[in-house]
């Protein structure tokens, strides 16, 4: 791999990322899949880095899942997006920060549609006015939450309690990354590093002391893909997609997989269990899986947050091997103790996949 070639390409795909005054919109599914990721993002942005970020209590789904599965027409989706913009305008925040990759893609797509078809924008404004009486200004800047962490990666590195380095051997930890499709495949110019060699997660891993390996099936779908998962009969394609990726990354012996999309970490994490059960194959060390992290979780670990506060106990693949390598201390007995102090119960052990 010729790094200078990649770096030359990365230079061509820079984008404007707002510095402050963010309007945060949450993902529908992440709060269930990876409950602490968004809370961690807000904590890092406000407490660690002192930025002004606001969440509106009335914001809704962007309707992206419905749009991508043909349940909701684009006209309706655009009006819902317009309503989010109206909330932003009312709150006085210019810079939109979606937590979800599909939302990010959708907001970008809607704005691009309006750019090319101003009459559609005028119609949507009319729809919104009739339905809610609201008006809106378009965001000055849209950046995905991972773009914000990318922009602030060096500030995070400066405050790091742990590096992506094996604290016993001193060896740099190896990560593989997986970018959500709607981050840059639709609009390569809107993604840091473009669509073919996105840099957004690589930048974080490198800034925090790790090494990134580019595996052959990096661009392949994680296995979510809306249509291939939502209908049960299609889930065989979903799990097969994840399997293709695991088989491709396994020879590189990655210490972790890093993702920036709501669906990808979920499927890359849970399907390791399903594949182990169905075929007896595991991809990590000693019969375990390869830990899968969101970028907020990784940032949290680097900043020294308690792994159980980051919600790592709800992962299917145990993250303890990674914690041990990074030299992060954790209390195994409090793994399943809830935030309210109540014991959550211990999940059933899988038959094949080894877990801690």
């Amino acid at each position, binding site marked *: 791999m010729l790094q200078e070639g990649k770096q030359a390409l990365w230079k061509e795909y820079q984008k404007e990322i707002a510095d402050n005054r963010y309007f945060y919109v949450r993902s529908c599914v992440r709060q269930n899949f990876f409950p602490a990721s968004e809370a961690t993002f807000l904590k890092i942005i406000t407490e660690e880095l002192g930025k002004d970020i606001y969440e509106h209590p009335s914001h809704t789904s962007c309707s992206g899942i419905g749009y991508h599965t043909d349940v909701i027409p684009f006209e309706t989706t655009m009006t819902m997006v317009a309503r989010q913009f109206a909330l932003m305008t009312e709150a006085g925040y210019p810079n939109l920060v979606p937590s979800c990759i599909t939302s990010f893609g959708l907001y970008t797509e809607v704005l691009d549609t309006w750019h090319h078809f101003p009459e559609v924008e005028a119609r949507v404004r009319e729809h919104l006015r009739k339905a809610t009486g609201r008006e809106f200004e378009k965001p000055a800047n849209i950046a995905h939450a991972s773009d914000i962490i990318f922009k602030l990666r060096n500030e995070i590195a400066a405050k790091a309690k742990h590096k992506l380095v094996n604290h016993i051997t001193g060896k740099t930890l190896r990560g593989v990354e997986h970018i959500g499709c709607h981050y840059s495949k639709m609009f390569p110019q809107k993604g840091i590093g473009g669509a073919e060699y996105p840099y957004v997660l690589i930048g974080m891993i490198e800034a925090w002391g790790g090494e990134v390996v580019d595996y052959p099936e990096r661009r392949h779908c994680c296995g979510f893909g809306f249509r291939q998962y939502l209908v*049960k009969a299609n889930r065989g*394609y979903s799990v097969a997609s994840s399997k293709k990726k695991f088989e491709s990354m396994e020879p590189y012996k990655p210490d972790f997989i890093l993702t920036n999309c709501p669906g990808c970490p979920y499927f890359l994490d849970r399907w390791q269990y399903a594949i182990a059960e169905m075929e007896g194959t595991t991809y990590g060390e000693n019969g375990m899986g390869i830990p899968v992290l969101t970028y907020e979780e990784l940032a949290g670990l680097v900043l020294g947050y308690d792994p159980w506060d980051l919600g790592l106990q709800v992962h299917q693949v145990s993250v303890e091997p990674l914690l041990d390598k990074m030299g992060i201390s954790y209390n195994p007995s409090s793994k399943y103790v809830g935030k309210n102090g109540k014991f959550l119960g211990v999940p059933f052990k899988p038959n094949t996949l080894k877990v801690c």
Partner: protein
Amino acid sequence: MPDFGYKIAKDRQIDYDENKRLIFSEVAAWEPSIYRCISCGTCAATCSAGQYTDYSLRKLILLVKRGEEQEVITNVSKCLLCGKCQLACPMGVNTRNLILGIQNAVKKTTYAV
């Protein structure tokens, strides 16, 4: 094993590195005119068997070349050996002998397995 209600989908991608191409090595030595095929489809258009089944000599030759041997095995027996394809072929592929060669190679390799 828990019943998930679905199975891991089989990959339909041709994996050229995994495929062995045993039939091809047999056939290419037996009937080298296989190299002359330009996949024009003249053979398949005129083929009697191809009108009623999904048999196509053009595809069969490609399946042999790529090493998609299971599909070769299920398809090669559909040929009626009438010889019309040989008459039609613009490149002078000895199709009759080629098909016999594929059939023999299939027998040889399936026995070998």
